[in-house]
């Protein structure tokens, strides 16, 4: 049942992926820009059960790995997002103080984005990738946190609406 509902949500993630690749990467936003797919996946996971969170991380991670700008091997983002989405879903599941409060979700997602990117970076280092100067890494991470904190509240309502329609009304904020 959950898996069927998860498959219904796949077109949403695919559209977000297309938006990310065709529109957002063209904007050339300062401070590293927005990783919309990562933000949407983490918000979706924060509203879901841990099982759905893990599946969300897997699906979104695969899409991010398919992106031509992904520097790592196939499965790199998938591994990171499975862990990140599970952690976010686990923290939020059954705790109405977190899931019922949009500010908490935005905070959780912002921390999640930075943490996911940091883990991605560490994993990349272990796989032999170059990461550049430390100041540049800090700048990109700070920029990601900034953009996530800006974008998350704007799209939270929309994602919550789709999530509630697919998985039930209880998760609507």
């Amino acid at each position: 049942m959950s898996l069927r509902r998860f498959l219904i949500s796949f077109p949403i993630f695919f559209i977000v992926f297309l938006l990310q690749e065709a529109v957002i990467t063209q904007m050339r936003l300062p401070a590293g820009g927005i990783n919309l797919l990562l933000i949407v996946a983490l918000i979706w996971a924060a509203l879901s059960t841990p099982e759905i969170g893990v599946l969300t991380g897997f699906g979104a991670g695969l899409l991010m790995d398919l992106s031509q700008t992904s520097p790592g091997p196939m499965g790199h983002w998938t591994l990171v997002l499975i862990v990140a989405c599970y952690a976010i879903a686990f923290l939020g599941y059954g705790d109405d103080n977190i899931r019922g409060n949009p500010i908490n979700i935005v905070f959780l997602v912002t921390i999640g984005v930075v943490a996911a990117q940091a883990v991605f970076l560490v994993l990349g280092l272990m796989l032999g990738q170059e990461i550049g100067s430390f100041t540049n890494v800090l700048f990109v991470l700070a920029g990601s946190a900034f953009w996530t904190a800006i974008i998350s509240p704007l799209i939270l309502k929309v994602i919550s609406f789709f999530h509630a329609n697919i998985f039930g009304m209880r998760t609507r904020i």
Partner: protein
Amino acid sequence: MRYGGDNRGRLLIIVLLVTSLFLITLDLRGVQVIDGLRTGTQTALTPIQKAGSWVVSPVRNFLSDVTHLGRTRNQMEKLKSENEKLRLALQNRQTADAQLKQLKGVLNLAGTAGYKVVNAKVISQGSSTSFTQTLTIDAGTSSGVHTNMTVLSGYGLVGVVKYAYPNSALVQLASDPAFKIGARIAGSQQIGILSGQGTRKGVLQLLDNTTQIRKGDALLARGSQNGRPFVPGVPIGEVTSVDNSPGAVTQTADVKFYTNFSTLGVVAVVVSGASADPRDALVPPKPRPTPLPTVTIYASPSAVEPTPTATPTPKIK
């Protein structure tokens, strides 16, 4: 109530984690299916990215104007004084003019060196949230662009073609942290290795510690065998500072790239190098200082000299 998890949930997590590790292993071992997936995705995405580039360009221009507001303020003041119709026409043609200027620069550079190039438009800039510096161009294998080809702008080196798809190609910028190029200093011919740092600044590591390097020295590409990935003689950047720490094993220097990677609109891919090494022919001329008029005043004999006047001395009683 906190989620404790059940066996089914745990099994799902383990299966998905193992799957992702399996994918990483396959990719690192160079399995063709994985490469084919990315190539297929990029081929399918190229027309969408082109459409996206067309749709987003007004927004992008607006954002660019906002971020460069301080620099363009004077220009904006001049434009305000102009005719309204002319100003609108100018704004509409701004993007095309900038691309034309870049194209002219690229063709001048390539023509001087004798490179055979394929021009391409930048259709997408890679997300730096993945800690890479890339861009996508609208020319691919169907235009003769292949992997490991040098990419130029009007100012010099842009990067190297990392992946080539039928109608597009992914270019690894020289600022990418994983980018490395053999470089030589124009004039003195000292050689070293230049690495990207994620910004417009690169780090040059000289191979010979006894040689001298100075601020302002121009760097050129040494070139590779058969001109791939790098053709010789391409201007890279200029030395901005030198680290002469005593006791250091190698001498390093900071280098500022000639190309501004954030404003690239048109680039050229070198599909065939020059028949002869252009050597230092492509080094950009140093800017000439503008002469300041100096005013020298000479005292002429005809000038009226002030006559000394007697100062009354106070009487002491």
